[in-house]
């Protein structure tokens, strides 16, 4: 395989990692006002993702950095072109990240309520805008022959892209509900499970519409297979949720998101950012790529360190595998016990 193709695959893997992992912690943030009835329940929800959300977000930073290194032209055109949506995502991620850490630092209901709203909107904005951004990448945007984005903000708002945004939103809500069902106990767990079944149905409708539209626009055999399997995984997730098999249900949405993102990348290849202009130029894995020297160095680094990262990140989930319920939440947001 060409090194540029290897890196296209690796970038896809990084985005899969990002959406499957941060997808559920966005979902938890979005469901905070829905599933929790009081402060203790909100704390139960926040603490299910407390130890892991930051590590989940690093997948985004590495995806950004890897794009910079492996496809500098893609990084430059994408980030300067999608300027305002990216700015909104950045602001959302900034305030959302602080909210988790700062919310519990003052025993003040108004203070907590403000941070709760920040968590909700900080999860909402990227959940929608990532879908909008990826749909626009797939659909193509105006890129001139100098590989510069030649459109404006409004070019990014079209029915297909908005459908993409709603699809990621619905999938992340579902993913988050199933995560809460898997990681909590008591009332919240039941509420999450009850919510998950209709959420699966809504996301299935949206996902079939969006992925079908994508397939019809730029699909390949590979993307068709990935999309069909993604749909099957989503239906299984719904069935498992109904049957109360929370682990399988969560695995189902995990696989759904992974396959859907994989399918989008398969539909995109070998372009990385197609142009809609007749006299423009599309960015491809070839003309956007770094030199083979740089790609070789990056490949060695990725081969050595990615398994290590997966191992210790996986271990974290194992360490914090226990379900949390309201009686696990200490009265004040401080330590209640010493070390063991």
């Amino acid at each position: 395989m060409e090194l540029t193709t290897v890196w296209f695959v690796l970038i896809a893997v990084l985005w899969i990692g990002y959406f499957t992992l941060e997808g559920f912690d966005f979902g938890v943030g979005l469901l905070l006002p829905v599933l929790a009835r009081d402060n203790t329940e909100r704390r139960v929800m926040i603490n299910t993702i407390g130890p892991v959300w930051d590590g989940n977000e690093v997948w985004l930073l590495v995806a950004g950095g890897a794009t910079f290194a492996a496809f500098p032209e893609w990084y430059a055109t994408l980030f300067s072109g999608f300027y305002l949506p990216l700015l909104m995502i950045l602001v959302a991620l900034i305030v959302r990240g602080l909210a988790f850490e700062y919310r519990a630092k003052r025993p003040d209901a108004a203070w907590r309520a403000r941070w709760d709203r920040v968590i909700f909107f900080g999860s909402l904005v990227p959940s929608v805008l990532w879908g909008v951004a990826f749909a626009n990448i797939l659909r193509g945007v105006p890129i001139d022959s100098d590989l510069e984005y030649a459109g404006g903000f409004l070019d990014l708002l079209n029915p297909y892209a908005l459908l993409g945004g709603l699809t990621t939103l619905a999938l992340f809500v579902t993913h988050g509900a199933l995560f809460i069902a898997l990681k909590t106990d008591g009332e919240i767990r039941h509420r999450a499970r009850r919510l998950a079944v209709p959420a699966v149905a809504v996301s299935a409708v949206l996902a079939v519409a969006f992925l079908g539209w994508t397939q019809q626009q730029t699909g390949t055999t590979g993307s068709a297979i990935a999309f069909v399997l993604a749909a099957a995984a989503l239906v299984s997730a719904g069935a498992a949720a109904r049957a109360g098999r929370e682990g399988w249900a969560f695995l189902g949405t995990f696989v759904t998101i992974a396959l859907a993102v994989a399918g989008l990348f398969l539909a995109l290849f070998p372009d990385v950012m197609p142009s809609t202009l007749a006299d423009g130029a599309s960015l491809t894995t070839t003309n956007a790529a770094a030199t083979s020297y740089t790609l070789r160095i990056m490949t060695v680094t990725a081969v050595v360190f990615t398994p290590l990262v997966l191992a210790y990140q996986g271990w974290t989930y194992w360490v914090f595998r226990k379900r949390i319920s309201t009686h696990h939440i200490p009265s004040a947001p401080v330590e209640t016990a010493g070390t063991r």
Partner: protein
Amino acid sequence: MDPTDIARWQFAITTVYHFLFVPITIGLSAIIAGYEITWLRTRDERWLRLTKFFGKLFLINFAIGVVTGIVQEFQFGMNWSDYSRFVGDVFGAPLAIEGLLAFFLESTFLGLWIFGWDRLSPRLHAACIVLVHIGTLFSAYFILAANSWMQHPVGYSFNPDTGRAEMNDFAAVLFNKVQLVTFPHVVLSAYMTGAAFVVGIALWHLRRATTDADRALHRPAVRTGAWIVLVAALGVIVSGDVQGKIMTEVQPMKMAAAEGLYETEQPADFSVFQLGTLDGEHETFSVKVPGLLSFLATGTPGGEVEGINDLREQYRETYGADPGAAYYSPGDYTPVIPLTYWSFRLMIGLGMAGVAVAAWVLWATRGSRTPQGRPVLAAAIALPFLPLLANSFGWIFTEMGRQPWAVFGLMTTEHSVSPGLTTTEAWISLITLTAVYGVLAVVEVRLMLTWIRRGVEELPPDLPADTGEDRPLAFAY
């Protein structure tokens, strides 16, 4: 202002702001790791209490450092897309490796450290904060390698077909001589900053302590911290001295701009401060140390230091011809002199003031003395800010002294900006980020002061073992 100026303001504001939290993160993670290991070794509870107290302050600081770091990763592409196209093949690699090696390590093991008090064995728990610290060092190494390449590009060739710098020697990029001296300079000043933060807070509590137990708790934090400030400062001075000589070699204009030295002199004096025109071209009064600039730049008090006017001519001859085609603009190659002149002095002056205060604190707390009175209060409040601001001015000097270049000798800042960036977009971004950062600064400082005032807490009683698996979490948000 045009989009370039707005983008420059944004880069300056977001980067200086981000770097207020970075040195504290690097320094404090090392100190907390030291506390926790000392507790493991001695089982003296004071160290565990200090670990938890400074751990909370660390998290308040770390959170804002992390989230403002996201902007750093993205704004190269957003505001500086021509720069990104030109350097991506070289500059992107250390950035991506920083994410893979450092960010994952920091975030994952910090999560384990925060929430893992009752899930991990004490040794494993301490290992987590050690790994967080190692992550901060990796992070510093790779991002400084990227920055050092901008100061002194090596290990690349210019490809006229693609119009970009392409890497041909990664080792040369990683072991750039500028990098090898910048890394210790930055990391040691981060240790100085983290330690000064600890000393200031612990001294404030020591002064207020009413019981012997309280004094016995805070005194070791004050004294170990002050020693770290002094030892790290020694390394900062030595590395800074070497750095000055390398800078004179690879960026002579920056050294001339540090002094506002217009005409070549041998020997060249160093002015501690001067009054006159703002750009230092005509001075009316100055306090000079004879031969000191020669010594800083060349290592001998009689060495020749080239002045701005001569260098400008040399630069015109070298860069007037065209290595980088579209990326080159003939300028006068002179940075903003008042800014480089004063930021250089403030870096050194504030750092030295930090050393003086730390030394005084050590002297004042010698034996078993607990100093009282206003000077102690002043020292406690001032100390955390001295090395911290010295860091900021050091970076302002380094980056402004490189101007008009983004990549020295290869690409000007003016040509780095995104060509499609509109003035409106640039303003929206600058205003939004500045406003958000401003609000967060207020929130952060208030929170920090609240938790500093609460002081070191008693250890909570250990719950009886039979509550087993269903006991409350040791830590919860």
